[in-house]
């Protein structure tokens, strides 16, 4: 689950991380008066769950309160499109009005879990402000990685060593080390998947300030963070994503796909994608209905698939285990009925109650091609796919 910058910032401040003074505004008028209180020259920042705001016009440096008002008016109520969003973009409901920070140096600092190291890892770079993925790909040596001890965390001396390695001047080493320790505490206490400051700024007057604040919370850990769960902003997700999450299925929309895939299990779902891709019939999505899906969830998943205009055919690949094939088949029939879809379905049903499932689909009146094994899938899907462009 993603938090907005302003939400993350409040948490940072609670943990003693120095942040720029700021206020949140929902209207241009609020933005104006906030800017007045903050001294006029401020930064107006669209609050969206997407990176790349700056290049997309979602961050504006303005000289006075009037400009803050008009900058806010240009953002609020509109959708912001960045390289990380869909073409529709994400709605801007709030803007953050922050005092400007006189920047001498920009750094990058983040905490995440490194599965290979089996521990949280603190990452820092002097190449702050830049796109960190680019730095990681092109100059991995510019990123300093410090592995935390799974039970002891990071010790103060380790934070000081890291601060020195990041080039903090001797006078600021202790302050920077405290910031690193506090960011680590934020990460652990709140079950984050990512706690990131980009840029972390050394100001011209020798202060250390977190200028941006990013926190992603692990969905699986939300059960113990009711306070964080309340900060969710589902409006920031695209509609399909939101529906998938509500239904409890894992769904990722893929560009340029044509085959809607419904599978149980992530590994099998990826295998299914690989096979359809190789058959020249690219998958339109990843969709894992999970182990314990019921009819309604399957039906909702089916409706999700067919509501994607790119989808020209459906491939249902269910290996019955906890999820029985008859349940899956009933869900598909229900979904097709409720959506009115008449897309051709390729179905591979194995495992628990596979026979029942096949009969239910066969009796449903839907156009279904049954497979016996996965090796037939590529050809079968290709055969059922209508010519490019046609639909229903």
């Amino acid at each position, binding site marked *: 689950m993603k938090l907005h910058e302003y939400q993350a910032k409040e948490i940072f401040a609670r943990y003693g991380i120095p942040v720029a003074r700021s206020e949140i505004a929902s209207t241009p008028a609020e933005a104006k008066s906030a800017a007045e209180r903050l001294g006029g020259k401020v930064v107006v920042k669209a609050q969206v769950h997407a990176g790349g705001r700056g290049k997309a016009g979602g961050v504006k440096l303005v000289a006075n309160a009037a400009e803050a008002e008009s900058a806010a008016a240009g953002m609020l109520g509109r959708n912001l499109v960045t390289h990380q969003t869909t073409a529709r973009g994400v709605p801007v409901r709030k803007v953050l009005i922050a005092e400007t920070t006189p920047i001498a140096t920009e750094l990058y600092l983040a905490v995440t879990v490194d*599965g290979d190291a*089996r521990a949280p890892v603190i990452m820092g770079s002097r190449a702050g402000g830049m796109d960190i993925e680019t730095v990681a790909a092109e100059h991995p040596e510019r990123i300093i990685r410090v592995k935390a001890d*799974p039970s002891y965390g990071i010790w103060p001396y380790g934070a000081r060593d890291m601060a020195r390695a990041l080039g903090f001047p001797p006078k600021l080493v202790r302050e920077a080390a405290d910031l690193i320790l506090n960011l680590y505490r934020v990460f652990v206490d709140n079950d984050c998947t990512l706690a990131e400051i980009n840029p972390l700024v050394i100001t011209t007057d020798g202060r250390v300030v977190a200028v941006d604040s990013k926190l992603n919370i692990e969905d699986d850990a939300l059960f113990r963070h009711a306070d964080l769960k309340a900060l969710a902003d589902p409006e920031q997700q695209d509609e399909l994503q939101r529906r998938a999450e509500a239904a409890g299925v894992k769904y990722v929309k893929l560009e340029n796909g044509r085959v809607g895939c419904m*599978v149980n299990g992530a*590994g099998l779902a990826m295998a299914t994608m*690989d096979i359809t891709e*190789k058959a020249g019939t690219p998958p339109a999505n990843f969709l894992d209905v999970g182990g314990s899906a019921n009819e309604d969830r399957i039906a909702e998943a089916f409706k999700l698939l067919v509501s994607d205009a790119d989808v020209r055919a459906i491939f249902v690949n269910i290996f019955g285990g906890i999820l029985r094939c008859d349940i899956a088949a009933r869900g598909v029939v229900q979904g097709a009925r409720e959506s009115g879809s008449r897309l051709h379905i390729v179905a591979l049903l194995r495992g*628990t109650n596979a026979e029942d499932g096949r009969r239910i689909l066969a009796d449903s009146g839907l156009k279904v091609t049954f497979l016996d094994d996965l090796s037939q899938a590529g050809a079968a899907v290709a055969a059922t796919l209508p010519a490019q462009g046609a639909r229903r």
Partner: protein
Amino acid sequence: MSVLVGKNTRLLVQGLGREGSFHAGRCRAYGTNMVAGIHPGRGGTRFEDSVPVFESVREAVDATDPNVGLVFVPAPAAADAIVEQIDAGLPLVVSITEGIPVLDMVKVRAYLEGKRTRLLGANCPGVITPGEHAKVGIMPGDIHKPGRVGVVSRSGTLTYEAVVQLSSLGIGQSTCVGIGGDPINGTSFVDVLKLFEADRDTDAVVMIGEIGGTREQEAAEFIRSMKKPVIATIVGQTAPPGRRMGHAGAIITGKAALASEKIAALKAAGAHIADSPADIGKVTREVLGHQD
């Protein structure tokens, strides 16, 4: 006894809710010797009118001497249950539970250091040795066939797919092991490959990897030194970088986590690659044919 489970397995099942009870029953029906159950508030009762149920693992261990623990406890309490089984000294703990917070698994993994317990999972289908009627997990038993090919996989249903391909070609399995799809788990590919390499009942190994992490590359390093042939496939070749594909393991975090990198490493190490996951059985048959 092939690897991990077999005819000497004495199974303890923790978490006898709806799902746990269902699968515990299936394990028993397959022939597994379940000696104890754990469920809060049900201590003193019997599961399926025969297996004693206890309040704590310690009590169960003292009374019934199990050697494998199976965890169905819901995610919020699963790490605690795993540690309870570790502290009770169970040699093998299999955690089916999915959705355990990653920081819980960081802790559990570190806690395992120096302990006598091996943890399989979490978020895995479990382990099955068809020739000895030992099933400790949620896989459908009837697709398996006794034989001499080991299977190891990060995935659940995809493992079943591989098993079906093998069985339908008449290729039986010694033991099939699901190591789980989470980024931090108890047993790695390398751990299982070592077991199969040392196992007299295994002639070849099928390994099913995924995008994300670098465990397959570690496996490749070990495969270099193996005498037994390994048939490998990597799924997620078409997944776009940086997008989560269902379970947390399947995330491309860097160049090394790409399917192409993994396949190259495995190929260089001498593994036989099934380019399509639909060809796992076929490639295995070819490899075994050459072996003869």
